[in-house]
């Protein structure tokens, strides 16, 4: 295994120490395993807490700061954090206006956040939870765990974060978070599998010349295997899947997301094709974000997320944000 680490079971705490060095503006609590804004709790402001397995950096720790999350709870690599982390984070950011939990739809995340909510309510903190489930590669039915939460998490955190920063009440922030999730869909593709520090070898075999469509963000195998194709064709396949479930209507936010092992250059190539295809389909791109935001360790590949937007959401998007991974306006 070739990784810049000390030992598999030290990766998460070691990385948190590094985060603290690079971002003294964040309070990194190694004991409680939470990352919190230094100015939290802010009286009267709705707190935003998210979290999930590590290995998706910058998600979520890189999105803590002004205009986005108030706290993040990183779990072990690809493993949901535990309720104690979420409860600590919630207590740390509650300014009396309640706290919104942003939960990606994985059984582990959902269950642990559910137990955390009980703990928080026992402690008298008002909590709402919004579950993000944007990945169209998974059928959303009674007979699955439902669609997975992937790239839309960034949109939910940014837009709900901006609204919370403006002083909106808990129910309104939660409603907007839900609306953003419902307006978003994603589809991902892997060129290589990823290697978790614990396992030390790729989580699945992907032969040369093949790619995996409908991939998750935890190194799970995808929906279908296909022969390698040019970026133009691949973008078409991904957008077809997304748009089948999110009929276009007005402008969109676009996230061209790298999964960790793909050069930025290639993401721009994909972005150019996405633009070409959306133009042809008459879908205007309102804003477009290209980079590694929701990663899967060292996996090569990318995912596309579209979010149908309007003036209200666009204003929230453009509002100032100051986090390690997303920053503008201040």
């Amino acid at each position, binding site marked *: 295994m070739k990784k810049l680490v000390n030992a598999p079971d030290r990766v998460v705490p070691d990385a948190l120490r590094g985060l603290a060095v690079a971002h003294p503006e964040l309070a990194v609590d190694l004991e409680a395993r939470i990352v919190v804004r230094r100015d939290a709790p802010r009286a009267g402001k709705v707190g935003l807490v998210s979290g999930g*397995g590590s290995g998706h950096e910058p998600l979520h720790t890189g999105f803590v700061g002004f205009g986005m999350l108030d706290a993040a709870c990183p*779990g*072990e*690599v*690809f*493993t*949901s*954090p*535990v*309720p*104690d982390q979420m409860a600590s984070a919630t207590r740390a950011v509650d300014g009396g206006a309640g706290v919104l939990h942003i939960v990606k739809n*994985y*059984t*582990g995340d959902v*269950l*642990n956040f*559910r*137990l955390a909510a009980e703990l928080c309510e026992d402690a008298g903190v008002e909590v709402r939870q919004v579950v993000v489930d944007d990945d169209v*590669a*998974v*059928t959303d039915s009674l*007979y*699955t*765990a439902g669609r*997975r939460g992937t790239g839309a998490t960034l949109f939910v955190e940014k837009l709900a974060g901006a609204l919370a920063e403006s002083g909106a009440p808990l129910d309104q922030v939660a409603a907007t978070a839900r609306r953003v999730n419902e307006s978003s869909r994603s589809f991902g593709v892997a060129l290589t599998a990823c290697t*978790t520090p*614990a*396992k030390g070898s790729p*989580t*699945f075999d992907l032969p040369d010349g093949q790619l995996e469509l409908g991939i*998750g963000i*935890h*190194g*799970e*195998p995808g*929906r279908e295997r296909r022969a390698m194709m040019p970026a133009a064709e691949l973008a078409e396949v991904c957008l077809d899947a997304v748009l089948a479930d999110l009929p276009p209507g007005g402008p969109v936010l676009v996230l061209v997301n790298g999964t960790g092992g793909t050069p930025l250059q290639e993401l721009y190539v994909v972005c150019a094709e996405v633009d070409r295809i959306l133009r042809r389909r008459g879908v205007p791109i309102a804003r477009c974000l290209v980079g590694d935001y929701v990663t899967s360790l060292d996996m090569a590949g990318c995912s596309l997320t579209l979010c149908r937007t309007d003036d209200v959401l666009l204003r929230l998007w453009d509002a100032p944000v100051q986090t390690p991974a997303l920053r503008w306006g201040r």
Partner: protein
Amino acid sequence: MPTVTVLDTAFFRHWLELAVDAVHRESPRLTELDSPIGDADHGANLDRGFTAAALAVRTEPPGTPGELLVTVGRTLVSSVGGASGPLYGTALRRAGKALGDAPEVTPPELGEALAAAVNAVRELGGAEPGDKTMVDALLPASQAYTGALTDGGSAREALAAAAEAALAGAEATVPLLARKGRASYLGERSIGHQDPGATSSALLLACLRDASAPGAPGTEAGPR
């Protein structure tokens, strides 16, 4: 062979010791099972959790079987994460609560605790039997235990039946299509693989059986 009629804290502590060892030993296999239809962490998750539970029980030795199970459950919840942490943790907490604060547990009471554990998993996770989850090992185990007692079996015989049913249940998950948890994303591609959670459930029940072996601590014939 002497019949096990009551089970005390030492019995459950012994179970925990066996479980800690077994989980650690089988951790690579559990993680391996979690690779094709999951995210390759089930073994590591449980290993972390049971190691923490052993420490918790050593640090503040519980006085009753119920307290011990609640401590283990709570520790799993706060150290495992993932899907299995809340499920196993809540299951053991509920089992412990079902036992109340009695210093000793009768075989039928253990049956109620097992049933409470299974119900907790079903309630929290929403899985039906046949959904290819730990329920497919836990439910038949609980039923076999109660059935064996009803048929006049000893606690030890009932635990042996439970362990056997759990193992059969785990193995029977192979042809199933997953409907809950991470494996459900794979749809048809989940068929043909044994569920890691059902496998670890069978392992934990085998430890319960082994804890009741003749001469084991906490059983009637064992050291007090």
